[in-house]
């Protein structure tokens, strides 16, 4: 059952040291504010799961919160490398990072299977490539009807899913629209969840009969954090701050500049800065 909490309370009560955590968002609706709160609360030994780890995972890794990353594409989209991720893999800084690597198809299917309560996902994939040689969790099954060999991976069943969405109603039902990625599956596959939203409304009002809505009883905590996806975007609220993604490349390249930025912008801030980021972005666009 969804509880309305502050972000600090939500992370406090739901995310534990050593948890597997899926903070999902496919370019759109990435839960940056929640990620910062996890960093501020100094969670340790996390296994982070995500198809497209980008800046927020770079930050969590660089701040030493993460023991293991389960992923399929780790980069700064359209810009280049994630320097903190690379530093952890290549140099073990600030600590070694174990990697469980998949393709997007495998990750998407693994979330889908988790949401569907299955132990495995079956799909046609990994043909002629090297990932199965380095990831022992990629196996195969034989179709009993055709004899075809199909790839199989374990379903994702994270301890915690964290997503950002556009709106919640007063009951705690949550609505998403636009590029919805694997967020619904991430929440439905997880044991616990935190959803940050742009706003809480009295009523969703007239809406598409097939709108993407997560009922309140599928959710853990619901937290209003306006701007909480910044520098990613929330369709209908604010655009992606592409300039910040480009700027991140320079910030994260060196350990010292990274740490200084984290201190100023995360450790010594609270979630309320996100609303200001979004306002600033909208003011510039206008």
């Amino acid at each position, binding site marked *: 059952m969804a509880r309305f909490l502050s972000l600090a309370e939500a992370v406090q009560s739901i995310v534990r040291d050593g948890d597997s955590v899926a903070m999902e968002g*496919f*370019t*759109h609706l990435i839960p940056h504010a929640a990620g910062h709160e996890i960093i501020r609360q100094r969670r340790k030994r996390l296994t982070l799961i995500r*198809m*497209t780890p980008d800046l927020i995972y770079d930050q969590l890794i660089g701040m030493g919160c993460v023991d293991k990353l389960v*992923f*399929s*594409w*780790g*980069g700064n*989209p*359209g*810009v280049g*490398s*994630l320097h903190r*991720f*690379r530093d952890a*893999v*290549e140099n073990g800084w600030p600590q070694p990072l174990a990697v469980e*690597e998949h*393709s*997007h*198809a495998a990750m*998407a*299917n693994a*979330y*889908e299977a988790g949401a569907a309560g299955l132990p495995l996902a079956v*799909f*046609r*994939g*990994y*043909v*002629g*490539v*090297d*990932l199965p040689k*380095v990831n022992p969790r990629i196996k195969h099954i034989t179709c009993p009807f055709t004899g*075809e*060999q199909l790839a199989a991976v374990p379903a994702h069943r994270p301890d915690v899913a964290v997503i950002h969405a556009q709106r919640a109603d007063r009951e705690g039902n949550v609505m998403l629209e*636009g*590029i*919805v*990625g*694997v967020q*619904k*599956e991430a929440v439905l596959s997880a044991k616990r969840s935190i959803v940050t939203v742009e706003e809480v409304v009295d009523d969703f009002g007239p809406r598409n009969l097939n709108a*993407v809505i997560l009922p309140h009883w599928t959710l853990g905590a619901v937290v209003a954090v306006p701007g909480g996806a910044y520098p990613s*975007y929330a*369709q209908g609220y604010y*655009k*992606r*701050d*592409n*300039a*910040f*993604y*480009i700027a991140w490349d320079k910030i994260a390249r060196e350990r010292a500049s990274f740490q200084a930025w984290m201190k100023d912008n995360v450790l010594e801030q609270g979630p309320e800065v996100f609303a200001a980021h979004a306002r600033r*972005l909208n003011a*510039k*666009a206008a």
Partner: protein
Amino acid sequence: MADYKPGEMMTVAAARALRNEDVCFVGIGMPSAASNLARLTHAPGITLIYESGTIATRPDVLPLSIGDGELCSTALTTVSVPEMFRYWLQGGRMTVGFLGGAQIDRFANLNTTVVGPYDRPKVRLPGGGGAPEIASSCGEIFIIMAQSKRSFVAKLDFITSMGHGEGGDHRARLGLKSKGPTKLVTDLCIFEPDPQSREMTVTSIHPGVTREQIADNTGWPVRYAANIAVTAAPTADELRVLREVHARTARAHGEAA
């Protein structure tokens, strides 16, 4: 003939490979530029699909990421990512997949995973993302990459997505029904697979480019087809449309800077 840069020639040549009736799974970066150039010139009916779930998108500016809001708001509809990979990609609905990569070998296998050993990489690259299954599920694959000895290598450290594997009928032996890479467009020339060996073979050289330049930027001894064309230079219209979309994109992405 208009003045143009090698990168513009590459994008234009790649765009021309796409047909009006194609359903194209578009990778980010140069594949996205080429696909949208095709849509804005000779292939207005082309269906562009991005792995973020946007179907039949018609962006006015090029996306910086695979999931920019512009892709969604101009799409016919947007589906979830599991649906995209299950019903649309694995469902075999894409006539073309358009990929780039960090490294390629002469059979058009791609590496975007690691340079060096997997467990102790010299360079940790972003990883495969959608590429492994794009490469196997789309009807055929177009690849667009600038040539250099660092990226066109004799042996890949890691096979992220399969091209023609070890060549010959390797794909068929693995049960793949799709064609694999049929075109590799670079800033110097166009490669296509040899009908027998499936080695990528130069079939067209961009205007003014020499075989020596190609050799200097390729990590294996390059093969040439019996008949080699000279790639038609970009037309004034192609260049205008490409430069306009890049200018719109720069304005849009820079506006918050």
